[in-house]
């Protein structure tokens, strides 16, 4: 062995007394970890290929398998953890940029977990969602407008376009190409059934999914992949992607190996070419340019569809959002530094951007101070992990949340974080037909519906406890939140008091 050798991260533990050598694990593993040794009549494993996706574990009929973290470790060093050393070995060997998938896994603060929610006691009643109406519907879009009346004094009830959501949750942008046809089908069908929206990402919209247009947000990103007239017209809203939480400052990258067949046609680029989006939009070098693209898209869609501008949460996010709110955008979407991705340079993913909780709090406050909060709706993502996170986000000031990773987990993702390999054993982040068909859209959409409905029930319970029967009365209602274990500065930015205050 050489200095490049890295001991496998995981060990495949097979209970020989249970294993019946049925070879299911072998057939299920696209990474080719398992194989059958005919001479000895037993299954063997090459754990160096294992990504710990748990496909074999979940499908082993005799529960003979488990994957554990290897305990073969270098001498402990708080400054030089093993992962850091291994990354240096890899780079010294390859000379390349390290790639990672899904959101930042490092132990940075998760503010959601340091925020607690209020409940009514004595002075006002909690409301029982099983017995009283409890409203979770929200409308996204610009609210600020003059009240006009006709000659008889009747209200003129015309409004700028709004997106109606039965619950303030949407599926965030994940492109066809980065995820599979069946994953997209599951998201589109679930969004339609739930009365919410999903988002195409920057990979275009497959012709089969035009029927779900009323529940679709189409994205216009810096590569302009898949953007054409019908695409814009098919959607309920158009999202301009300026940035992504997992990789602020750079564009998307889909390797040529994933650009096959329908993916190529939908993106409108040749098969096998890398789809590399530019880091900036080359027609947007400043805020006044953004305004032009916003209005170009509004012209193209006859002012019938809200335009969303999606940005990554970065240091100056409050001022950036303030600029966007004056640019004609109807909705601002902010993606936090824990947002997921199909592939991002590791250093960028782990070190660039700021937590969504702080970004949301400062943007909402800034827009209010400038008196323009009702110019736009605010949607936040990256990462929203539970109904409690949704409630906290709304109370901090969000109109709605985007969920990406949570939706993929509902579809079967086990967060092995190797999407960039294209060999997703769960049929999600892959274009290999044999793997894609493992995700059944009938089941996938049902699981997404279950997840969102379950969260909706929980949101209602939490709201009822606070004596709030419409989620509109929770938006920006920061008195309903308290911090625990946060310092003065963090509390000040979040605009909440400490527990006990």
């Amino acid at each position, binding site marked *: 062995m050489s200095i490049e050798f890295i001991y496998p991260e995981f060990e495949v533990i097979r209970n020989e007394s249970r294993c019946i050598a049925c070879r299911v694990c072998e057939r299920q593993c696209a990474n080719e970890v398992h194989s059958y040794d005919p001479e000895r009549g037993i299954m063997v494993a090459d754990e160096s290929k294992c990504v710990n996706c748990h496909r074999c574990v979940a499908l082993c009929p005799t529960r003979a398998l488990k994957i554990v973290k290897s305990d073969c470790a270098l001498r402990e060093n708080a400054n030089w953890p093993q992962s850091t050393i291994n990354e240096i070995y890899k780079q010294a060997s390859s000379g390349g940029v390290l790639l990672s998938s899904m959101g930042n896994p490092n132990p940075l603060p998760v503010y959601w977990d340091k925020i607690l929610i209020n409940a*009514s006691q004595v*002075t*006002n*009643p909690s*409301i029982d969602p099983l017995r*009283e*109406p409890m*409203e979770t*519907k*929200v*409308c996204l879009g610009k*609210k600020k*407008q003059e*009240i006009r*009346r006709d000659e008889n004094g*009747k*209200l003129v*009830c015309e*409004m700028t376009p*709004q997106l109606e959501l039965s619950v303030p949750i949407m599926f965030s942008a994940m492109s066809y190409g980065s995820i599979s046809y069946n994953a997209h089908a599951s998201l589109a069908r679930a969004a339609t059934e739930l009365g919410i929206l999903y988002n195409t990402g920057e990979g275009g919209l497959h012709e089969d999914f035009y029927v779900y247009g009323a529940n679709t947000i189409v994205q216009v990103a810096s590569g302009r992949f898949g953007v054409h007239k019908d695409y814009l017209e098919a959607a309920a809203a158009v999202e301009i992607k300026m940035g992504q939480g997992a990789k602020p400052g750079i564009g998307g990258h889909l390797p040529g190996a994933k650009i096959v067949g329908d993916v190529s046609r939908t993106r409108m680029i040749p098969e096998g070419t890398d789809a590399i989006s530019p880091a900036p939009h080359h027609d947007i070098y400043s805020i006044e340019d953004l305004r032009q693209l916003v209005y170009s898209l509004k012209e193209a869609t006859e002012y019938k569809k809200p335009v969303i501008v999606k940005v990554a949460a970065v240091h100056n996010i409050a001022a950036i959002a303030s600029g966007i709110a004056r640019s004609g955008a109807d909705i601002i979407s902010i993606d936090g530094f824990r947002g997921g991705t199909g592939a991002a340079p590791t250093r960028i993913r782990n070190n660039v951007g700021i937590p969504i909780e702080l970004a949301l709090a400062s943007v909402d406050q800034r827009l*209010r101070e400038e*008196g*323009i*909060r*009702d110019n736009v709706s605010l949607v936040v993502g990256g990462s929203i992990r539970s109904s409690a996170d949704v409630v906290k986000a709304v109370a901090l*000031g969000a109109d709605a949340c985007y969920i990406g990773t949570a939706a993929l987990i509902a579809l079967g993702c086990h967060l092995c974080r190797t999407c960039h390999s294209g060999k997703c054993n769960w049929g999600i982040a892959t274009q290999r037909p044999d793997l894609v068909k493992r995700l059944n859209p009938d089941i996938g959409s049902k699981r997404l519906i279950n997840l969102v409905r379950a969260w909706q029930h929980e949101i209602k319970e939490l709201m009822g406890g*606070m*004596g*709030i*029967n*419409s989620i*509109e*009365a*929770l*938006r*920006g*209602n*920061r*008195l*309903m939140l308290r911090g625990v274990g946060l310092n003065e500065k963090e509390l000040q930015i979040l605009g909440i008091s400490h527990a006990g205050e």
Partner: protein
Amino acid sequence: MRLEGQVRIPSGCAIAAVISREGRKMSGELITNAMKPMHDRSNGLGGGFAGYGIYPEYKDFYALHMFFDSRESRKECEAFLKERFEIVKSENIPTRKTPAITDEPIIWRYFVTPLKSVLESMQLDEKEFVARTVMKINTGMKNSFVFSSGKNMGTFKAVGFPEDVSEFYRLEEYEGYCWTAHGRYPTNTPGWWGGAHPFTLLDWSIVHNGEISSYDANRRFIEMFGYKCTLKTDTEVITYIMDYLIRVKGLTLDEAANVVAAPFWSTIDSMEDEEEKKKQIFLRTLFPSLLVTGPFSIVLGFSGGLMALNDRLKLRSMVVGEKDDKVFIASEEAAIRTMEPNAENVWAPAGGEAVIVHVKDGCY
């Protein structure tokens, strides 16, 4: 301990109101008596009244009722007022000593009219100018507080039980065509007179019973438009919401009620009248942050009328009764019966159902 305004203090309460559709005057004694059977709904930490039509001789002037901590703060504030208003009368508000009311601040009233030159230079209409001046004093001058700022109306409030507050302010000597009253049951001890109700801005006054759960959502929204919630009370924020919707945005009382106590989406969806449905969707979509949830019953007084409104689940008691030209509203029927033993058509309005009473044109 932190004072009201530095901390939010929820409270339960008693409210009552009476109005004559014919504009007939009633002395403050009537409404005072209404509060007596509801004594236990207050705890002595705040009581107050608003009377409309009480200053007929100064009806064209804004009546500023003020609390001052000291003679110096009064002098300082008066200098500020003189830069902005012509002051036609300046006097102590008459009070009578009663053992139940102590620690009173300096209580003063001014009848004023804005200086035309200042109005023109600021390019503001008169009401907006007065509203902003009140905000400025209440947020900027630590020891001065405007607690009433309408024309031909006035608020009287103190720390104490309502009936004692009435005696203190000699309300039996005032005559108005409309009165509202409030007894407070705060869950903390602010001991501050400004924190008592009614809360007023211009000729809006609100008495309110409840603790709204939407408070911070409403506050953070309304503060975008120049209002400053210095007291952190529900009543204050509801007053500003009403002022914004009706005076600034130009909604009618009914429409404002539909925003504040909006019908449920399910109710709107099942509406058969298409126009009504469109209107309700319009109002809910445009003003989602002004929906008020949690328990409340309020009486909103204004020149020439009042509106009573419950939260949409009717989580607080409120009854209405009538007799001849008079309409009575109170937290409890007993209060109505005290004012008018033979009150008729006594009913409890449904949650979100606004009861709007106007005095005949020309009678106020």
